[in-house]
């Protein structure tokens, strides 16, 4: 395989996300199970992302790269439940221990914020601030 493998993967993910998120149960009248998972989890997730962006080390890293932490936090409030879950899921997947703002974590964060500001388009779930 070649590097476009990842591009295909992310296309696939975007497609499945677009198709998957708004899907209601095929059975009229029932609300699909995934909707229950979203509403239950999005609030604590939102708090976690905000707390993460609030951390001194994270703020410092963003500041030295010229990213306004408040703008990023405002954007978190505007994310949908599904988007919040995806971001929080990314936070969960970071290897634990050691240097907290590790390289991976840092790149993730910068890309997330630059996505939001419209410089990049890496994550399928971000929407640019116009």
């Amino acid at each position, binding site marked *: 395989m070649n590097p476009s493998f*990842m591009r295909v993967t992310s296309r696939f993910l975007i497609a499945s996300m677009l198709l998957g998120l708004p899907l209601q149960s095929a059975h009229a009248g029932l*609300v699909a199970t995934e909707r229950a*998972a979203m509403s239950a989890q999005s609030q604590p997730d939102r708090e976690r992302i905000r707390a993460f962006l609030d951390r001194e080390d994270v703020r410092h890293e963003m500041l030295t790269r010229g990213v306004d932490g408040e703008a990023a936090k405002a954007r978190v409030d505007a994310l949908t439940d599904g988007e919040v879950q995806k971001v929080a899921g990314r936070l969960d997947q970071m290897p634990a221990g050691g240097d907290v703002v590790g390289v991976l974590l840092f790149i993730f964060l910068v890309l997330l914020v630059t996505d939001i500001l419209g410089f990049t388009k890496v994550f399928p779930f971000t929407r640019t601030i116009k």
Partner: protein
Amino acid sequence: MAGVLLSAWLGGCATPQTQALLAAHSRPMQQRAELVSVPFYPQEIHQCGPASLAMALNAAGAKATPQELAAQVYLPGREGSLQVEMLAATRRNGLLAYELAPKLDDLLAEVADGAPVVVLQNLALSWYPVWHYAVVVGYDLDRGEIFLRSGREQRQVLPFATFEHTWERAGYWAMLALPPGRVPRSATEAAYVSAAIALEKAGQPKSAEAAYAATLDRWPRNLAARIGMGNTAYIRGDLSRAERAFRQAALDHPDSAIAFNNLAQTLADRQLYAEALTAANRAVALAGPELAAARETLEQIRKKVP
């Protein structure tokens, strides 16, 4: 995304997880484990995905050959298999696909617990990737070695550091294929219930129901699993079982509009209209993101009331 991360990141040679694991004074896990009973399918050219998946699926009790799985996951044009298809094919075979957190100790803990782990590796370099799927079947902490069924090797022995390098370059991707009643040792509540929901969406209500039941055993207050119990019973046409699940959901989560909405629909299907109306009104009163659905349910029930 991983591609961007990898190309931006590679250059360093540290294997932090290996070092942390081997340096730990008190290791909570077994020193050594090997799942000798995991079958071995030597891979055909480029077909490491179907071969690896077949080994994991067989170990979990599903009958599937690499040839059958190749039709489900192998993309001839790309000479490989996408991770999402590996997950999807697992579900299509009635098993729960669980993506592990990118942690070496989690991965080893699952192996010690008896579950072989399918991993994606990049055997070459970030700018010249050679993607490869293999199955981790054992490890030895003292010797610092990990054992894999890989390619045409039935028992490949790799030093932890080498494995971590190749695994890291593939974004630390690892998955389990499990009988749906079994919760992985390292599972988080949100990730496990998502895996169960994916099973339901893959058209496997029976397996999904078992996974929801297992979720509730471990996390009794999980709303999604309770709703899922009801929805899967409903899909299978077992309305009394669905009703029981939604009643319990409404009892445990009196603020859940979804619980009351789905209870109302089920009661209406059982022609218990008076009670259905009460539940539907409650769902509308709770409002929230499902308000439109709740209103629609209420209206439909009103139409049916004789």
